[in-house]
């Protein structure tokens, strides 16, 4: 391995010593250039955000330390509380709808007997549409006059509501758009999980007289649990950090019905130019997502590493 250049007789000459050091340095030299970018930009931003959150900035971006005052202001702000609750509702709605849809789509793609490549290819298309374009398209689909939704409702003689003018409907449309954008990826992750299940198990279950639903809940779900976990993490991560879709579709309206934490953060930082309070919201967003990521690392990465270590010894 890395130390294979050591002299065989155990005696280290100066030249060997240098060669040995150089070999040891190789993996670090490979890994560090990328890390400079990652730490330099993303790492800095995280630390810088924490620093900003305990400072107050004036119009000329001069900072003065104010301790936890920004936090106290923000947490007592009813607008923030409302946006946090809204985010949680948004995330729960998105996760529920998103995972159910992904599961149905994955099962469909798994069982479909013809044109598999075609349908799989189609199903991933929204993944490559930018959040802004998704928002613009969805806004257009739900436009009052000229939208697809009302076009269909009108054809069936049903009432044609103003989707984006009604707070509840607008929230629903935001959830739909978010799902449209994130479901394709988790569908394919789940499909991957379904494909790893050995078909013989299903045959055995059928012979034993298990019904379709029984097979799904007792065999399929437990077998694809890891993949289900990965999709859950993906879906909740995307939903928590949704920003471009809501900004371009409703800008938080109507009547702040779709103003989630990330939207309010943008409002605070860029329209009210209060970077300190904006940074507090960043810390909130980051903490929630870090908790999710710890969950993720604990259940997937660390257990993987443990398995790898056991395999080595």
């Amino acid at each position, binding site marked *: 391995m890395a130390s294979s250049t050591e002299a065989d007789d155990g005696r280290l000459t100066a030249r060997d010593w240098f060669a040995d050091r150089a070999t*040891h340095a*190789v*993996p670090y030299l*490979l*890994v560090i*250039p*990328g*890390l400079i*970018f*990652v730490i330099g*930009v*993303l790492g800095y*931003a*995280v630390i810088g*955000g924490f620093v900003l959150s305990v400072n107050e900035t004036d119009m000329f*971006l001069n900072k003065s330390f104010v301790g936890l005052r920004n936090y106290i202001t923000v947490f007592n702000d009813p607008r923030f509380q409302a946006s946090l609750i809204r985010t949680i509702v948004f995330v729960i709605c998105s996760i529920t709808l998103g995972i159910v849809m992904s599961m149905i789509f994955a099962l469909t*793609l798994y*069982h*479909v*007997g013809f044109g598999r*490549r075609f*349908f*799989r*290819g*189609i199903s*991933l*298309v929204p993944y*490559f*549409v*930018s*959040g*802004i*374009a998704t928002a*613009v398209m969805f806004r*257009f689909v739900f436009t009052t*006059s*000229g*939208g697809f939704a009302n076009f269909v409702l*009108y054809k069936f003689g049903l009432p044609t509501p103003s989707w984006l003018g009604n707070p509840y409907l607008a929230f629903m449309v935001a959830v739909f758009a978010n799902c449209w954008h994130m479901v394709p990826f988790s569908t*394919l*992750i789940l499909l*991957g999980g379904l*494909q790893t299940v050995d*078909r013989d198990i299903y045959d055995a279950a059928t012979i034993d007289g298990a019904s379709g639903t029984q097979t799904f809940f007792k065999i399929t779900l437990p077998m694809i649990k890891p*993949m289900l976990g990965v999709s859950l993490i993906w879906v909740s991560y995307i939903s928590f*950090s949704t920003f*471009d879709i809501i900004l*371009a579709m409703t800008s938080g309206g109507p009547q702040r019905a779709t103003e989630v934490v990330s939207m309010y953060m*943008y409002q605070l*930082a860029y329209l009210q130019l209060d*970077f300190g309070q904006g*940074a507090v919201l960043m810390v909130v*967003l*980051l903490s929630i*997502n*870090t908790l*999710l*990521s710890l969950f993720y*690392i604990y259940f997937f*990465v660390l257990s993987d590493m443990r398995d790898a270590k056991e395999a080595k010894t």
Partner: protein
Amino acid sequence: MSETLNHQEQPVLGRERSSLQHYLRRSRRFLLIGLPLAFLVIWTSVPILWAFMASLKEPLEIYESNTFFPRSPSLEAYQTVLAIDGFGKWIFNSVLVTVVATIVPLILSILAAYGFARYFFRFRHILLLLYLVPRIIPRVSLIVPLNDLMSNLGLINTYWVLYITYIASAVPLSTWILVGFFKSVPKEIEESATIDGANMWNRLRYVILPIAWPGVVTAAVLCIREGWNEFAFVLALVTETGMRTLPYALYTLRDSMGVQNFAVYNAFTILTVLPLLIVYLLLERRVVESIVTGAVK
């Protein structure tokens, strides 16, 4: 392979049973598979198709919204979009930034992934975590401190600010993908190459990369996707009209157009989405396969 074989078996099994049972089975199968499949296709394609149809319609026709297909399709809206002042510059910006934010992260992450996949060294797990954790940081949450940093460095409204942030956000994802692909290359092949006298560069170039090529393609497509679709950073770090990328230009289009001209609006949307969709459709098989086999998470 085994799946396709199994699927061919099913109708054979059905044929052995009585025709009524066979018929029931088929109609149930149609309901259980056909309906969700139709829903999947409609759900996925309607927003794009509806925008595309509208881009070919006349403005008045869109308001009436009586038909799905345009009565007399015209490319007038596309001509209007292409004539928008600055549209060429926005495309140029998007392409330039995407190319840089694909090539540089690929090089960086090929090196890093090789390091992680083939060497055992101290702090390996911690360094790997430092690479992976940023993937779970919501990008939008970073715009406030990044704006602070970049304006201190005087980089606002330059290409550099976009290169730096885009590269930083693309590296973790592609490293993660490539580590998996590189690890799956059998070590024995590399060992025999070492015996034949190949050094690390040659092993990486002539052994690892050709075998793990699907992974490199997947990572490249996903880097292109990130770069082309990135919005939060460009929104926060660029203010000049001439420095915008396509998503940002699309976002500001609503404000810059006096009257809502839906045909032009949708033509613009289609034009921003189309290039990436073409890239995807060309390399679709590899990308879908990589995600389904769990190489991209």
